Structures are given as C-alpha cells and as structure tokens.
C-alpha cells in the first residue's frame, strides 16, 4: 500500500468517527434541531438543568432547552419532539425521579383535544413542585400516628389475652353463623311459605282495591255531599261559635287573676332558668379558661402528662408483675437418725431468670433443744444429769439467690438462723446438688449445721431429694441421712395477689 493511501485511509477514518460523533451528540450548534418550542413558568425550578427530560405519561417527549429568570419566576423553554401534540389546558409540573433522583418536567395532558398548543406557545397551568422536606415532615407525622395506632393494636391484640379474645370472637361469629345456617336450613320450607303468604297477601290487597273501586267512588261522593252540607250550615255554626266565645271570655274574665298569677309564675320560672343557664355558662367559661379543678383537668397539659406518666408507671409495674414468676414447693424429708419427718414449704419469687427470693417455713422435729439439769441426791452422792430434749419447732427461711450460669449462690436466713448456701444445677437443671451452712453459733459448742443434698426432678412437678444433714455434728449423733420427695409448681394466682400489693415500681 502506498504511503498516500495509508494517510488517506487514516484521514477518512478520522472523518468518519468525527461524523458519527456529530450525529450522536445531542446539540450541534443550533443546526438540525427538531421539534418545536414551548415555554412554561414555575415558581421554583430548583434541581432542573438544561437537557432535563420532558415527559408525558412517563414517556420522554422532549428536553428542557433553557432556564431563565423572568421577573421572580423561572421560565423554562422546552423543546418538544415533532409529532407530540399537547392540549392547551395541559398542566406542567416539576417531578423527581424516585425520592432523590434527577428532576424532570411532567406534562399532564388536558382534556381539550381540539385545541393544541402551537409552536412557541405557553403552558399556563403549573403545579408547584413538592417540597421534599415538607413532605418528609408530614410523612413522619403520619408515621408517628400509624405507630401509635399499631402500638395500641399490639397492646390490645398482641397480648395473649387479646389473642384469646380475638379467637373467642371469631369462634362466636362462627358459631352464630353456624346457628343461623342451621335455622335457615331447618326452616327453609317455613320461610318459603312465609314468603308465599306475603305474596298472596299483596295480591289480595290488590284484588280488594280493584274490586272495591265502586265503593271507594261512593265514599268519595259521600264526602263531597257532607262538605256541601257543611257549607250550607256555616252561618248558623258561626253564630253558635260566637256565643261560645262570649262564654269563654266570661270565664276568662272571672279567672283573670288566676291566669295572671300563672303567667307571672311562668315568668319567674323562666328567669330562674335564665339564671341557671347563666351560671352554667360561667362554669363552662371557667373550665375553658382553665380555672378550677375541672378546667385544669381539661385544659392543663400537666394533667395529661401526669396521667400518661401514671399509665406508664402502671404499665411498667404490670410488666414487672408479669415477668415475675412465683413457685411454690413442698417437700417432706425422712430422717433416719432419729427417725423423724421434716416438712418444708417454700415460696420462690423469681423476677428474672438469674435471681430469686425464697421465703419458707420449716417444721423441724429437732428444732428446739432444751437442756435440763437434774440434780439427784442418792445416798449422799450428788449426781448431776443433763438431759437434752428436742421439741418441734417452726422455723423460717428468707433467702436471696443469684444464679451464675449453673451455679446459684444463696444467703439469708435459713431455719431461723443466718446461713449461706450454694446449688449447682446439671442435666438441664433437673439434678441439683447443693450445700447449706447455717446456725454458726449453736448451743453447746456444736459445729455449724452443714447440710448436703441432691434433688432430682422426676417429672416437672415432682422431685425426690436425699442427702446428709448436720454432717459436722457426729457428737450428739445428730448427723443423719435423709430421703424425701416434694412437689413444686408455678403459681399464677399468687402472683396476681402479689401484684395487688403496692410495690414501688
């Protein structure tokens, strides 16, 4: 290929590309522009740029060519594609693509299909663009309302009780409709008969009225003759009426005083009514001005606020009460040495999973130790005998407990003395092993009361227990093994009772 040919190809190719660009770019020095111009004025054209789209029914039909300030308003010159016809009464508005997208001019076509805007015409009707901030503010207000509504819905229907009542209502409706269906199904024949009867009745009525047309006509004739008679006798009647009027006026004249009195009574009654109304008006005005208790209640925001606070407080309290779990348990321990029975009743209040309060009563057969010294003198020898007797005693426990995963630490009053304890729960909390240490200062230099035990839940509400009681105390043969069982259950009713006890939330 010759050098000239290469250069020629190079130049031609360059010109081809340049020509391609020329035809693709949207504006070519004002030459070759298609379509016609329209103008439109807006209060505010913020966000609009030249070349922004003009759309009709969402379809691009042109571009914004120029934006100028004319007076205080923005004047847009639109270039609308050839062949797009826009009615004279069309409405233009600035719209946004999406919430934050680019702006464009939307033309809502008018109804006057016979009059179209000419080239250079002006779209007179515009809609002010929506202020986004304003819109968002309104939306957030609405959202607040909706939220309040859904909150109250959640409060009423969302609760277990609400769900129950809705279910109940639905069940009632179902039952009612079932009953209705049964009634109609059972009485279909009867209903049909009733309808048939009504049919015949109306037919009869029709019959009667048509067959008695003659009678009706006669009745009307009678009426006419009666009115005729009346007319003829009117002068006489008038005279009689006059005489009667005279009599009446005579009667009134005689009772003038009475009538006057009645009227004056009426007057005073109405004056009183007036006063009453006035007073009522004053009261209402006071209320409206916010005076007095009622007025404050009605007008003062603090009343509302404190009411809301109160309700909040109640709400919180109710929630707490709801979260609170109460367990009751009873256990019976059989001690081997000496063979005695020991009873426990405990109330466990559990406000949250990791802590509880334990209040209990223990019936301890070895509860009370009483030592009696007997001095016997036999043959001049004085023998001192000390006899210890134990008697039944009710003891009380009150403990606080805190749980750290499997381990629970307890402390407080155990069997009417100070004590501490620890439990460890394994096998998904079914098996509990624990140690209690209490009664640190016992009579007669006895070591502290140490009790090791294990509980195993056979089923949810029934458990067995076993262990060694008073381990350290072998001196007085009080160390004993024990075996027993117990029942425990969660108590809902007791909680409600507790909820009624005023506790500061």
């Amino acid at each position, binding site marked *: 290929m010759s050098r000239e040919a290469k*250069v020629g190809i*190079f130049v031609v190719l360059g010109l081809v590309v340049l020509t391609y660009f020329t035809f693709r*770019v*949207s504006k070519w020095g004002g030459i070759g522009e298609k379509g016609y111009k329209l103008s439109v004025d807006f209060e505010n054209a913020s966000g609009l740029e030249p070349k922004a789209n003009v759309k009709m029914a969402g379809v691009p039909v042109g571009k914004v060519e120029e934006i100028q300030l004319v007076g205080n308003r923005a004047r847009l010159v639109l270039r609308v594609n050839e062949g797009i016809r826009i009615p004279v009464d069309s409405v233009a508005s600035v719209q946004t693509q999406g919430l934050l997208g680019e702006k464009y001019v939307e033309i809502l076509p008018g109804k006057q299909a016979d009059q179209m805007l000419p080239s250079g015409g002006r779209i007179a009707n515009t809609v002010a663009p929506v202020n986004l901030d304003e819109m968002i503010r309104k939306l957030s207000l609405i959202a607040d309302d909706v939220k309040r509504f859904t909150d109250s819905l959640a409060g009423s229907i969302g609760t277990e009780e609400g769900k129950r009542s809705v279910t109940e209502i639905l069940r009632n409706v179902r039952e009612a409709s079932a009953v209705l269906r049964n009634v109609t199904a059972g009485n279909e024949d009867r209903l049909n008969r009733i309808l048939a009867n009504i049919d015949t009745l109306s037919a009869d009525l029709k019959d009667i009225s048509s067959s008695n047309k003659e009678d009706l006509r006669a009745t009307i004739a009678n009426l006419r003759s009666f009115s005729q008679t009346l007319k003829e006798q009117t002068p006489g009647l008038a005279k009689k009426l006059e005489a009667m009027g005279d009599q009446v006026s005579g009667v009134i004249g005689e009772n003038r005083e009475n009538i006057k009195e009645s009227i004056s009574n009426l007057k005073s009654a109405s004056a009183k009514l007036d006063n009453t109304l006035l007073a009522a008006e004053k009261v209402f005005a006071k209320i409206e001005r916010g005076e007095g208790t009622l007025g404050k209640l009605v007008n003062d925001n603090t009343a509302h606020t404190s009411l809301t606070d109160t309700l909040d407080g109640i709400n919180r309290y109710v929630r707490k009460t709801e979260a609170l779990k109460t367990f009751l348990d009873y256990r019976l321990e059989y001690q081997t040495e000496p063979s005695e029975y020991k009873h426990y009743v405990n109330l466990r209040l559990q406000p949250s999973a990791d802590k509880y309060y334990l209040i209990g009563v223990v019936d301890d057969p070895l509860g009370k130790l009483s030592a009696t010294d007997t001095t016997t003198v036999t043959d001049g020898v004085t023998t001192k005998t000390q006899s210890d007797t134990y008697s039944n005693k009710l003891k009380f426990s009150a403990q606080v407990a805190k749980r750290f995963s499997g381990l629970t630490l307890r402390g407080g009053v155990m069997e009417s003395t100070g004590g501490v304890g620890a439990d460890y729960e394994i096998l998904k909390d079914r098996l509990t092993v624990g140690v209690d240490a209490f009664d640190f200062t016992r009579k007669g230099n006895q070591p502290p009361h140490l009790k090791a035990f294990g509980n195993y839940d056979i089923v949810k509400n029934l458990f067995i227990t076993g262990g060694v009681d008073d381990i350290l105390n072998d001196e007085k043969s009080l160390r004993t093994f024990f075996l027993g069982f117990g029942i425990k259950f969660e108590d809902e009713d007791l909680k409600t009772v507790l909820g009624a006890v005023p506790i500061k939330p």
Partner: protein
Amino acid sequence: MAKEGNRIGLNAALEKFGTRVFGMLEDLGNIFVLLLQCVSWVFRPPSEFRNIVKQMEEVGIRSMPVVLVTATFTGMVIALQSWSGFQRFQATSLVGSVVALSITRELGPVFAGLMVSGRVGAAMAAELGTMKVTEQIDALVTLATNPVKYLVVPRVIAATVVLPILVVFADLVGILGGYFVAVYLLGANSYVYINKTYQYLEFKDIYTGLVKAAVFGFLIAIISCYNGFIAQGGAEGVGRATMRAVVASSMVVLISDYFMTSLMF
C-alpha cells in the same frame, strides 16, 4: 576581599540568570521568526506534497498505537475513579457523562499531544539536529533549496492536520474503554451509560478538543524543528537538542492547554 568576592559571586549569578533570560527571549524570537517564515513559505510553490504525506504517515499512522493505548487506559481509569466517587452519593449513572466530557474536552487532546511530543517531537529534533551538525542543511542551501520550506513546513502542516484526527480516534477509544470498565467490570446499565454519555455531550466539547489538538500539533512541530535547527556540537548536541525539544513541547502543550481551555470555556 570577601565582600569583593561576594559581589563577584552575585554578579556572576545575576549575569548567568540574565544570560538565561536573554537566551530564552532569543529562542522565543527565533521561534517566532521561524513561524513567520513557515507561514510565508506555505503558500509559495512548489508545494511539498509528497513530503507532507510522508510526515503525515510518520506523525499520524505511526503514532496511532501509542495514542490509542494511552486513550483507552485513560478512559478506563476515569470510569473507575469517578465510579468510586459517584458511588458515595448514588450518582453512578453519571459516570458515562464524566468519562465522555473529560476525554473529549481535556484528556484526549492532552495525552495525544504529550505522546506525539515525546514520539514525534524527539524524532524531528534528532533528525534535523543530525542534519544540522553534519552540515546537510548548509548543503541544502547551496542546492538553492530553502531548508524551512523543505524540512519545516511539511512537518508543521502534517502535525497540525494529523493531531486532531488522532484525537478523534483517542476520543472514540477512550469512551469505549470507559464503557467497557463501567458496564463489564462495574456492572453499570449499558443503556443508561450510553444514554448519559450522549445526553450531556455537545459538539462544542468535541471541536474545542480538536482545535486544541491542532494547536498542539503546530507548536510541537515548530518547537522540535527549531531545536533541531539550533543543534551544534556533534552527537552530544543532537542529544541535547532532542531533550530540549521534548521537554519544551510537553510543557508548551500543558501550558497552552490551560489558556486555550479558559478561552473556549
């Protein structure tokens, strides 16, 4: 003495500086004279048509690969960069416009100019410098051939005409490079990208780029030829002339770019 020596040092420095300034002014004047000679010889017969075509091949066709590769990667990197910027405010649809505008208005002409000044300016200065130091130019004069008409005019015409054409190709491949990156690598919508590319692109953007390119071509050619003409001192002088040609023409491209842009803003 020290003071005297100081004064001598200062004087020497000032003298050196002054010589530099005068040298630059002299160069500027000489270039202007060359420019006038050039213009005056353009319209005088006989025309150096074959010579012009040869230079067009040299400046245009031979420079195509380097210009196209540069422009492609420029478009790609602009797409990448502006994407990462616009993504921060959800305006990635505008990447097409940004690529198209920056390539056609600015980067296409400038990078093409820089490439040509490096490739062709150096070649011109070296060729003419070698001819100068081997006294071939003097020989031309003795053959009654004007060296400006024979050597400079074809180069200047070729560069002035060819550089805009190079820039047209650079614009095309730059936009295509940006399209490739945005659509195939970043997942832009192809229709939206093309639409945005053309929505904001005006013919003015393209032709101002082409005017710039023509001016660049003219300046590169004349500065390189001048530096070749003033080469002296053997191979070393040729080397120095080449270096000066490339540095001067690259700087002139960037400086004149600013002024032309502000003029045609």
